[in-house]
C-alpha cells in the first residue's frame, strides 16, 4: 500500500514533464490554412477554378435581382405587384437609397471574386510547376479581376483598390481613373498570355480566352470614350476568326448555343437547384412565374421595349415570353397573383404580364432553369462595339458593315424585314447603333450602362424618375460606410 502511495506522489512530476506546447497545438481538421495554399500545380488549378465560381453566385448578378435592367427603360420589377415591392420597387422608380436591398450583396461578392483572383495573381507565380499553365492561370485571374473591377467602377465609380490577399481593414476609395488603369493593366496582361478559344478542349470551355479579354478591353475603352483603342480591340476579336453569329438569334443566349460560335465569355451552369452543386439562380430569378413554375418572374420586359422593335423583327418574340405562348411544348399560363394587364388612371395599359425569354431553359422543373449559361460577352456585342467605335473614328462604311451583320442575322433569311442601314451621318448613326444595341442585347444587363456612357440617361430615363448627377451611380452600401466608420465617401446626392 505504501508503495502505491509513494508512486502516486510521483504523478504530478510525471505530468509536468509532458510537453504542453505540443498538447495545446491543434491545427484545423480536414481544412488547409491559408499559409499552406496554393503550393502545388493542382492547388494552382483549384485556386484558379475558384475565382470563376463567383460568376455563379446569385449575388454576382447585380446583387441577385437584375436591377440594371429594372432601372433601364427595358424592364419593370416583375413578379406579382407586391413581391419584393419595398426592396426592388425603388430601383424601378429611382427611389433607391444607400440601404437598398442587394447593394451590399453585389459589392461584397465582387470583392470576394477579386480576393480569389488575387490569390492566384499573388501566390501562383512562385509555385514550381508547368510554365505554360502557370502563365495561363495567372492571366485568367487577371481577366477575372478586370471584369469584376469593371462592374465596380461602372456601378459605383471610384472604389477601394485591392491587389493583395491581405487587404487593410480601412481603405479609401480610389479615383475612377485609377480603377480604370488597373482594369486596363489586368486585361492587357490577360490578352498577352491567354490562349484563343479554338485551342481550348471541349471540357475547358468557359475559361477566359484572348478573345474574351480583347472584347472586354474594347468595352472598357468604350466606357472611357477611347474609341481608337476600342476599335483596335474589337477588330482584333473579329479578325481572329474565332467567332461568328449564331444563325438563329435565340441560340445566341439559348441552350443550343451554349459555348457555341457566338459565345465569347460564358458562365457554365448545371441544371440543379443549388449554387453549391453547380446551378446558377440568375435565370430562376427571372423565370416564368406560376404555370409553368420556372422561377420568380422578376425583370418584366416593358411595353416600351416591346414597341421599340421594328415591324416583324423576330428578336422581339425571342426576347419576350407572352402569356399563351407555347415554348418547347409548354403553354405559358403565367401567375395567378399577377394581373395580366396593368392600367394607369386613364385606362391605358402600361404593363403586361410577360417574361424574359433570353433565360428560358427547356425542361419541366425549376431546377433545369438553374442550368442557363449566362453570356457575359457575345459576338454580336463585339460587332456592335466595333460599329460604334468605327463610327466615332469617322469610318462609317466599316461601321455600317458590322452593324448590318447583326441585322442580317436577326432577319434569319426574311429579306422583307430589317433592311440594311445606310445612314452615314455620324450623329444619326450613333443613335441608330445605340437602338440596335438595345434590341439585340435587350434584357442582358447592358441597356442602363449604355445610356449612361452615351449621356442619354437623363433624356431617356428622366420620365421614369432618373435624377441627373445622382442616379448615374449607385449609392455606396450604407453598411460599408458604417463599417468603414465613414472612410468611404457616399456618392453625390445620396446622403
Amino acid at each position, binding site marked *: 500500500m505504501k508503495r502505491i502511495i509513494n508512486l502516486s506522489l510521483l504523478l504530478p512530476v510525471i505530468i509536468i514533464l509532458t510537453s504542453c506546447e505540443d498538447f495545446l497545438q491543434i491545427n484545423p481538421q480536414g481544412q488547409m490554412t491559408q499559409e499552406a495554399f496554393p503550393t502545388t500545380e493542382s492547388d494552382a488549378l*483549384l485556386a484558379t477554378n475558384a475565382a470563376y465560381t463567383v460568376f455563379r453566385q446569385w449575388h454576382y448578378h447585380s446583387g441577385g435581382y437584375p436591377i440594371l435592367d429594372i432601372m433601364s427603360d427595358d424592364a419593370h420589377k416583375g413578379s406579382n405587384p407586391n413581391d419584393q415591392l419595398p426592396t426592388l420597387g425603388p430601383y424601378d422608380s429611382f427611389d433607391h437609397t444607400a440601404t437598398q436591398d442587394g447593394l451590399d450583396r453585389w459589392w*461584397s461578392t465582387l470583392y470576394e471574386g477579386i480576393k480569389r483572383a488575387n490569390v492566384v495573381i499573388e501566390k501562383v507565380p512562385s509555385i514550381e510547376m508547368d510554365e505554360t499553365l502557370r502563365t495561363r492561370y495567372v492571366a485568367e485571374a487577371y481577366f477575372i479581376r478586370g471584369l469584376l473591377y469593371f462592374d465596380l467602377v461602372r456601378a459605383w465609380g471610384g472604389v477601394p483598390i485591392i491587389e493583395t490577399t491581405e487587404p487593410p481593414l480601412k481603405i479609401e476609395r480610389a479615383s475612377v481613373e485609377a480603377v480604370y488603369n488597373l482594369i486596363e493593366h489586368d486585361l492587357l496582361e490577360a490578352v498577352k498570355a491567354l490562349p484563343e478559344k479554338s485551342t481550348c478542349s*471541349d471540357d475547358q470551355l468557359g475559361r477566359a480566352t484572348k478573345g474574351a479579354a480583347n472584347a472586354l478591353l474594347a468595352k472598357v475603352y468604350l466606357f472611357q470614350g477611347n474609341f481608337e483603342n476600342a476599335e483596335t480591340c474589337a477588330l482584333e476579336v473579329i479578325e481572329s476568326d474565332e467567332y461568328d453569329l449564331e444563325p438563329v438569334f435565340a441560340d445566341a443566349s439559348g441552350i443550343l448555343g451554349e459555348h457555341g460560335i457566338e459565345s465569347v465569355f460564358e458562365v*457554365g451552369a448545371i441544371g440543379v437547384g443549388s449554387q453549391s452543386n453547380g446551378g446558377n439562380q440568375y435565370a430562376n430569378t427571372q423565370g416564368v412565374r406560376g404555370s409553368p413554375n420556372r422561377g420568380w418572374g422578376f425583370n418584366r420586359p416593358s411595353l416600351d421595349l416591346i414597341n421599340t422593335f421594328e415591324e416583324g423583327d423576330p428578336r422581339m418574340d425571342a426576347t419576350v415570353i407572352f402569356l399563351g405562348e407555347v415554348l418547347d411544348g409548354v403553354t405559358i399560363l403565367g401567375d395567378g397573383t399577377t394581373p395580366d394587364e396593368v392600367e394607369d388612371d386613364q385606362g391605358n395599359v402600361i404593363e403586361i404580364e410577360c417574361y424574359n425569354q433570353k433565360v428560358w431553359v427547356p425542361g419541366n422543373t425549376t431546377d433545369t432553369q438553374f442550368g442557363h449559361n449566362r453570356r457575359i460577352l457575345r459576338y454580336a456585342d463585339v460587332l456592335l462595339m466595333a460599329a460604334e467605335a468605327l463610327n466615332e473614328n469617322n469610318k462609317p462604311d466599316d461601321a455600317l458593315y458590322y452593324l448590318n451583320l447583326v441585322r442580317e442575322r436577326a432577319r434569319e433569311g426574311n429579306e422583307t424585314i430589317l433592311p440594311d442601314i445606310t445612314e452615314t451621318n455620324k450623329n444619326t448613326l450613333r443613335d441608330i447603333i445605340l437602338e440596335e444595341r438595345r434590341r439585340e442585347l435587350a434584357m442582358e444587363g447592358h441597356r442602363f450602362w449604355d445610356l449612361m456612357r452615351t449621356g442619354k440617361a437623363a433624356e431617356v430615363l428622366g420620365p421614369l424618375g432618373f435624377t441627373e448627377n445622382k442616379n448615374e451611380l449607385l449609392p455606396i452600401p450604407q453598411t460599408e460606410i*458604417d463599417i468603414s466608420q465613414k472612410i468611404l465617401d457616399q456618392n453625390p446626392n445620396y446622403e
Partner: protein
Amino acid sequence: MRKKSLNRFWWAGWMAMILLMFSLQAFTQPRTVTGKVTAGDTGDPLPGANIVIKGTAQGVISDLDGNYEIGIQSPEDILVFRFIGYVDQAVQVGDLSVIDVVLEVETVGLEEIVVIGYGKVKKSDLTGSVSSVKSEDIVKITSANVEQGLQGKVAGVQVTSTSGAPGAVPSVRVRGVGTFNNSSPIFVVDGVILDNISFLNSADIESMEVLKDASATAIYGSRGANGVIIITTKSGAEGLAKPQFSFSSEVGLQRVARQIDLLDGREFAIISNEIKPGSYNNIDAVPNTDWQSLIFSMAPIQNHQLSVSGAGDIARYYMGIGYFGQDGIIDKSFYKRLSLKLNNVYQLSEQFRLGNNITIAPYNQRNAPNVTYSVYRAQPVLEPYYSDGSYAVVYNVGNPLADLAHSNNFNNGVRGVGNVYAEASFLHSFTLKSSFGVDAAYNKSESFTPAYTIYNPDGTASQQDNTFSDLYKGTSDNLTWLWENTISFDKIFDKHYINAVAGYTMQKTTSEQYGLSGANILRDNPEFWYINPSYIYDPSSNIDLVQNINNSVDPGQYYSMISYLFRANYTYSDKYIFTATFRRDGSSKFSEDNRFANFPSFAAGWNIGREAFIEDVPHVSSLKLRASWGIIGNDKITYFDRYARVQSDIITVFGFPDNAFPAASYGKSGNPDLKWESTKQTDIGLEFGLLENRLTGELDYYNRMTDDILVELSTPGHMGNGLGQRIRYNAASVSNSGIEFLLNWREKRGDFNYSVGILGSTIHNEVKSIGGASGIDSTLIGGYLGNGQPVTLSRVGLPIGAFYGYVTDGIFQNTEELGACPHLSQAGVGDLRFVDTNDDGVLNGEDRTFIGSPIPDFIFGINFSAAYRGFDLAVDFHGQAGNEIFNGKEVVRPDPYNFEQHVMERWTGENTSDTEPRPSFGGYNYLPSDRFIQNGSFLRLRTLSLGYTLPESLSERWHIARARIYLKGNNIFTLTRFTGYTPEIGSNDVLSNGIDNGIYPITAIYSVGLNLTF
C-alpha cells in the same frame, strides 16, 4: 401497443426486485429498547419522532408523550432519532435498554457543508456566493432536465425553456448575460467538467451548487465567467450496513398549457373580405378549422427509478437505474432515456481510497416538424381533409397534418460520463488525489420523408410535393477526457484553520460527424432506411446529392487545455476568513502568444455573529459579511477561429457539356490575435439568521464587467470575405449588475411544520462598447426572423440583444394626417403612424430605434412548503418582470395567413381605432415595430404537490421504511399578458433572445407518484 408492453415489462421488473428485497429482511432477534424523545429548545416531549435502526428499514414513531419502543437485533445496532427541524442523533444500543434522547434544533444555514470547486467547505467558512439546491427540490419538476430543478430556487439564476419538445434542453443564465457568445454556465458533475448534462437523472442527484461570484468560480478560471453549477450525485452513506432500496415511480399527463387566440373561420372571412372584397360570398357558410386543436393532444409522461445504496467494511456503493419517458403533445415526438448509475468508494486502508462515479445513459428521441408555426398561420377557412379523406391543400403553409404524418425524424444515442479516482492521505493533513474522467457521446440521426403529393382541388399538384422520398443519416461522436491531480492540505492549529488545494489538470476534447443524404429510396418502411450509392447519385432521376456528403469535426468540440490551480482558505478564530484563488489556463483555441491566461480572485468574510458584541444581541443567531473580487474567463468559441482557412467545398462549371470541376480558395480570414475574454466580478454579500435561525437570509450585490468579449464582427466588403461573413475579434464589453436576495422562514408549531422562501434578483445589463480597438463596427445586429429581417441590435448603452424597430404613434385617421407627417411611401390612411425619431423630417430605416429588452429587470421565486403529520404540501411560484417579447411569428407574412384575435379591433374608418390598423395580409403594418412588442412579465405556478406518507404502523407491517404517495401539477397556470404559448422564450443565441418565432409550446403536467424506501 409497443408502449404498453414496455410498461408491463417495467412493472414486472420492479415487482421482482421488490419481492427480492422483502426476502432479505427475514431475520429479527427479539429484544426491546424503550425511551423518550424530548426537544432541546423547549424541553417538551416530541411526539411523532422517527426512530430507526441504522442501515435497516425498521423503525417506529414516538407517541404523544415522546415515548417509543423498538425491537432491535443486536447490541451493535445504532438507533437514529429524527425529527424535522432537529439534528439527527445516533446512539449505539450496546447493553442499554432505555435510551432517552434530547434532539437539538437544527441550525439551518451556516453549518451546512457546501460543495465548491475541488473541495468542500462549511457554509460559515465560505467567502463566495454559492447557492445549494438539495435533491428533494430537484425532483419536484417532472422533466428530463435536471436544470429545471433550479428554476425559482436560486437567486440570480434564470432557467428558460427553449421549447416544450420532449427532451429539449433549457437555457440557463447565471447573473445575466455577460457575453455575445455562449452564455451558459459550465456543469461539474462529480468533478467532470461538462457543457451539457442531459444524461443526468434527477433522482441520482444529491445536491446542486451554483457558484456565482469570482471567489467561487475563479478556480474554474477560463470557464467560470458564466457561472459554475456543481452537481454531486448520490453515494452510499457510511454506516448503512444493510442495503437501502429506494423506489419511485411517477406517471403523468401533459397538455398544452394554453392556446393562442386566433381568428375562427367566420372572423377570417370578414377580415379577408375587407382586404379583398368578395373573397368569401357567405361568411356564415365558410368552414371553421381549429388547427391548433388538431395537432395538440394529451400525452403521457413517466419517470421511474430504483436505487440501492449501502456500505460495507471497505466499500460504499450507490447503484441506480432510471427510466424517463415523455411523449410530445404533438404527434411524432418523444424522448426516452434510460440511465444507469454506479458510484463506489473503496477504502483500501486508512490512507488510501479508490472510487468511481459512472453514468451511462442511452436515449431515443423523435422530433416533430415545426407544425406549431404552420398551425398558427393556416387559414381557418380551409378544411384539413377532402371528402375522400385525403389531405387537403393548405395554401401558403402546407397541410400541417400531412407534414406530421410523413415525418420520421429520430435521434438515438448514448452518453457515458464518469471518472475513477485514487486518493491518498499522508502526514495527517495532506491528501493527494488523481482523477481521470471521461465524457463519451455518440449520436445517430435519421430522417425519412416518403414521396407524397398534396393535390389542389382541381387535381393538380400543390407546392407540398415531395417528388422523391428522401433519407438523411448522420452520426456524431464526442470524446472528452479530463485528468485532474490535486493535493490538498487541511489543518487546524489553535485558532487558525488552513485549507488549501493546488492542482494540475489536462483535458482534451475531440469530435467527428458524418452525414449522408439520399433520395428515391426503394421502399418506405424503416427496413430500407439505409443509404445506397444510387440514392446519392442517379443521373437517370436527376439525383445528385454528392455535395451533401459531409464529414468534419464539431468546431466547438475540438480543443485541449492545460491548467494549474490553487486556492487557500484561512480562518481565524472562526470569525475572519480569507480566500485566495488562482488558476492559469492554457487552451489550444488561442495562438501561442495568447495561449495562457491567469485568473486570480481574492475574498474575505467576517462572521460578525460570532463576535461577542453580537452574540448578546437577542434574536440574532448568525450574521456574516463577505466580499470578493476576481477575474474569470470564457473560452466558448470554435477552435479554428484564429485560423485563416482554405475553402475547399466549392465547384466550378466548365465545358461542353457543362461539367463540375473542384475548386478551392481562401475562405474568410482568421484572427491570430484572439485572446481570452475576461470578466471582472465584484460581490458583496450579507448572510443572516434571526429568531433562532427561523428567519434566514442572504443579500448580495454583484457587478460583472466583461471585457475583450469575443465577438463576430462584420468586415468591410473589400476584405473579400464574402457577404455577411464575420470574423471574431476581442471587441466588446458588457456589464451586468444587480442585487440578489433570499429570505427563508421556517417554523414548527406542534405537528405543523412550514417554510416560506422568497428569492429574487435584479439584472441591469448594458453593452459598454462594441468594436473597441479594431473599430470596425459600432452595433451588432441579430435576432433574425424567418425572413431574414433582423430585430435586435446591441449598441452601447443598451442591453444585449435589445429589440429595435419603428415606434408607432397611433393610426393615420385621414389624408390630412397622412400628409402632415413624414411617412414611408407605402403608408396610407388607416395604417400605423411611425415616429420620425431622429426628427429629420424624413421617415426611413434610420428612424428604427430601441423598442424593448428581452432581459428581465427582475426574476423571482416564491416557495412554500408545509407538513402536518403524514401530509406534505409544496407550492412553488416563479416569474420575471420588466422584459419584452418580440412576437416574431406574427411579423413574417409574405402570404395571407390567419391572424391573432386583436385584428378584430381594426381600424375601419376615421376614429374607429388608434391602435389596430386596417387589416392587411402583410406589408407595411407588419414592418418590425413596437406593435409586436409584448410585455414578457409573468408569474407561474411552477409546482403544486400534495403528498401523504403512510403511517409507520402501516409501513412497518409491510416492511417498508417509508412510503409516500403524491399528486403533483407543474406549470398549472401562468399569469401573463403575452398572447403566445408561453412567455418564457429562451434562446441559446444571446442576440436572438425573447423572439417568439413559433416555438413548441411548453406543457402543463399532472402526475401521481409513489416513493418507497425499504
